[in-house]
């Protein structure tokens, strides 16, 4: 009897430890905030290009996370990406003329939406639409823009160079 009891104790200890580890994995490692699920309110925004923005990406204001991206889908009517944001309920004073932009966290980090407060006295409500948006910066576009502006400058210099040469003497 004594031996079975110690076996049961060790088994119980093992099981408790196992479930504690499972609980730790679910609550401490993940970003699952149990208080923040369906709460809060939704905002919508249309972007020309969302880059690699994903569902669950943070929405931040002045660098502080105030919500998450709920869905990203392509709208065939407007030919734009339609993004739904879920904002935590305590951040209910976002001016109506705020603008949304897609940024990249760090050099290799994921993309997130940054909201910048406008100056209006009225605030966005459930289902509100953010009118002013700025697309994600796509690296290829940035490089081609830079290259073209560089080429333009060179071409300008070439066309203006002979003029200055002839006008000099």
């Amino acid at each position, binding site marked *: 009897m004594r031996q*079975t009891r110690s*076996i*049961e104790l*060790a*088994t119980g*200890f*093992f*099981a408790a*430890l*196992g*479930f504690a*580890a*499972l609980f*730790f*994995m*679910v609550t*401490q*490692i*993940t*970003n*699952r905030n149990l208080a923040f699920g369906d709460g809060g309110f939704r905002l919508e925004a249309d972007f020309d290009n969302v880059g690699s923005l994903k569902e*669950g990406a*943070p929405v931040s204001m002045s660098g502080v996370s105030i919500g998450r991206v709920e869905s990203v889908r392509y709208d065939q009517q407007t030919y734009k990406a339609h993004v739904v944001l879920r904002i935590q309920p305590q951040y209910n004073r976002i001016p109506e003329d705020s603008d949304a932009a897609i940024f990249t966290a*760090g050099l*290799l980090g994921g993309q997130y939406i940054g909201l910048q407060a406008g100056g209006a006295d009225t605030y966005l409500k459930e289902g509100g639409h953010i009118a002013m948006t700025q697309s994600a910066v796509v690296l290829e576009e940035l490089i081609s823009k830079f290259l073209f502006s560089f080429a333009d400058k060179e071409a300008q210099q070439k066309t203006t160079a002979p003029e200055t040469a002839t006008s000099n003497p």
Partner: protein
Amino acid sequence: MNLRIDRLGGLRGALEKLGGYLLFSGRLLLATPVALLRPGLVVAQIYNAGALSLALIMFCGLFVGMVLGLQGADLLQRFGAEEALGPAAALGLLKQLGPVMAALLFAGRAGTALTSEIGLMAATDQLSAMEMMAVDPVRRVCVPRFAGALLALPLLTAIFITIGLYGAQLVGVQLLGIDTGQFWSQMRSAVELDDVAEGVVKSLFFALACASIAVFEGFHAQPTAEGVGRATTRTVVNSSIAVLLLNYVLTAFYLS
């Protein structure tokens, strides 16, 4: 000609063994809910398979996590991204290292014990004696062991992962000076509940494979000293192959 027949015979034997294994596993699985009605037997097997493997799993988990922290930090520092150690260690442990290493250790520690125990029971005619008393040895001996191992491995995996993360944090934060807050907050923002679920599902599959192979090999071992030894070897080899193969399939499934 003779060689050809031998080869065909070998193939036939392998197929027979595979079929026998699958049928036996199905029988074990079907009988498991009934075995849970007599929890005393299963609890004793959870003790044998789980509680006795606990120290090994904790020790190995700590060192796997520590080496992950050391190697990960060394690599990430080259890119100036050592804060990404948290997510790297967490995802690596949750999805791959945790389930696979725990299952391999489990096959070596608990699987062999199961096989040799059942094999020796057969060698010493204990199983035949049970049959004489109209006690089904599969139900009385095999199923509780199978159920105990099935329940123990996922818990062991969870413990392995948690300890491993602690080890990674120990090396990364205490030794290499990565910021604690960065470590945990980056981990939390990178790891989803689905990633945890993937680890748990993987360890369930591995538990199924390891437990059924160990019990099958033990029950079908030749009832001699040599036969039991061979069966024990086969348990480790087949379990390891099954775990690594299953891991590839499950990883591909989860990535698609």
